[in-house]
């Protein structure tokens, strides 16, 4: 059989269940809304890095599953997260991406979060400290203690990343949530404070899971042919994909032969603490976070799903807070050459996934997306994606291969 007709094209693949997914999971509006409710509003999500809020009264704003979030550093230097919503009339309290509450704003006094609309004020612990003309309007029916901000669960974990959950009842710490997936890099990122040196964002037309898939699978080495294939060796193909409880995956390291890539040179001059030169680890965290350490620079991708076929990806590059200017420049150059918005690989990855997004728009026909490569759980095995979608099925309650059917735990042999 060569080219196929419609019946053949849409027929079940000659693979085991779990070795493909239905493209509907990337395009369906209803499934997307379920994902926001059942996954994104339930999980720990890293939202920024502590170096973005160095001083007391510093803040950062972001969203999780459309909900506006603000992270602030208190006078006690503790980081706390709140819904960025005024309890009065639902206005967004702070619109800037970052800044400091140490100074006054046009509607408010220093050291408070002030809603510009009616000047209700809150301290760094979320307590309401001022309702303007309270007695005149509310008499004794409402007071400050009734209208504090909604605090969100938050933790600083893994090299200073700030994790937030919208789920008040989340019964895991971030460490428990990670289930060991972050351990391989923990000594390197926890030895001393890190600092973000790079930030840019992409909003692209594809489902968030397609970007996560691309971070999970290395079979797309062929997309970066001249930056990858030329450096391949047996050690590369032996890299292991290891699944961890919760849908997380760790891609094992090897020593990258940068000098085999035209225009590159070895990065042995600079690494991370406890990390031998030129190593390359990758950690993919469920549901849409990636940590990628190539010797001298750490990259994080934090995804914010915006629709079934739209995702925002925030790209950060990190080094050590103690970097000398010379070392920082080396890290920046290494980071940018591959991962910058004008670098060699990132554009190619983004072009590829938007190509997938173009064929999987809402309303497009359901197709099978194959995740069936088995290579002893090494680098071109697609076990990372299979592991992810098993977890996805548990949370959403749908079979990834047959999303109109309930999820069933796979058998050992499946």
């Amino acid at each position, binding site marked *: 059989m060569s080219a196929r007709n419609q019946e053949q094209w849409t027929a079940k693949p000659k693979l085991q269940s779990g070795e493909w997914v239905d493209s509907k999971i990337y395009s369906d509006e209803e499934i997307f809304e379920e994902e926001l409710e059942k996954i994104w509003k339930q999980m720990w999500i890293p939202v920024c890095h502590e170096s973005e809020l160095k001083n007391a009264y510093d803040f950062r704003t972001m969203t999780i599953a459309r909900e506006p979030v603000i992270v602030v550093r208190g006078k006690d230097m503790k980081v706390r997260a709140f819904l960025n919503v005024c309890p009065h009339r639902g206005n967004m309290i702070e619109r800037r991406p970052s800044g400091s509450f140490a100074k006054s704003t046009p509607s408010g006094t220093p050291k408070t979060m002030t809603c510009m609309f009616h000047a209700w004020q809150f301290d760094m612990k979320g307590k309401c400290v001022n309702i303007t003309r309270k007695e005149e309007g509310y008499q004794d029916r409402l007071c400050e203690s009734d209208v504090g901000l909604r605090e969100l669960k938050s933790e600083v974990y893994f090299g200073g990343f700030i994790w937030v959950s919208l789920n008040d009842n989340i019964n895991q710490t971030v460490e428990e949530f990670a289930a060991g997936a972050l351990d391989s890099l923990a000594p390197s990122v926890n030895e001393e404070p890190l600092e973000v040196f790079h*930030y840019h964002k992409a909003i692209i037309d594809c489902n968030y899971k397609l970007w996560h898939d691309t971070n999970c699978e290395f079979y797309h080495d062929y997309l970066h042919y001249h930056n990858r294939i030329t450096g391949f060796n047996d050690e590369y193909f032996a890299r292991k994909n290891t699944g961890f409880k919760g849908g997380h995956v760790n891609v094992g390291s090897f020593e990258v032969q940068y000098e085999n890539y035209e225009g590159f040179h070895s990065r042995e001059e600079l690494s991370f603490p406890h990390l031998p030169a030129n190593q390359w680890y990758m950690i993919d965290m469920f549901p849409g976070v990636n940590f990628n350490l190539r010797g001298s620079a750490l990259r994080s991708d934090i995804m914010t799903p915006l629709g079934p076929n739209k995702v925002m990806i925030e790209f950060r590059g990190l080094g050590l807070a103690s970097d000398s200017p010379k070392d920082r420049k080396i890290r920046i*150059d290494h980071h940018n050459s591959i991962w910058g918005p004008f670098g060699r690989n990132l554009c190619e990855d983004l072009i590829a996934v938007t190509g997938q997004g173009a064929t999987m728009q809402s309303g497009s026909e359901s197709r099978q997306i194959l995740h069936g490569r088995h290579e002893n759980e090494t680098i071109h095995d697609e076990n990372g994606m299979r592991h992810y979608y098993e977890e996805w099925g548990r949370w959403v309650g749908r079979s990834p291969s047959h999303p109109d059917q309930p999820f069933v735990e796979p058998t050992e042999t499946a």
Partner: protein
Amino acid sequence: MAVNGAEIAEKIKSLIYKTCLYQDDCEWNKWLDLCSNDYHYSIRAYSPEIQKDMEYMGGPKEYMESITGQLRKHNIDDSPLKRHAVVYRVDVADDNKSATAVTSLTVFQTLLGGNSSHVDAGTTGIFLVGRYNDKFVVDGDDVKFIEREVRLETRRLDKGTHWPI
């Protein structure tokens, strides 16, 4: 041949516009031929998110020659980028041996394929906005770039590009 500051300033304007045409046409070698051997190129932006000045790309002339020489080996978005530049200011040093210039820059992208070539091809949108902050070395009537900083306002860069701006 002796030249005065006004003549140098005119040469510099012409040189900046020439780089735009060469880069629009992906004539990378012709672009870099306008630069001295000590040339340094960078793309930078300030991020209010992390409250830091950032470098997105940077290197000396030989690095730029190396990466532009390898473009054919990459899977590139071939959607043309066209620069709209207006030289706002040229300052020539009193000794006529150096100069600086500030150029307002908007880069438009016309999609070759986009997400769906059937729908998107031919669509033009703003790719980024920023400025060229340039420095020059002047030797008589010979003027060459010695430094270009592309200072971006845009930080949402979506798919980005392999091409220097």
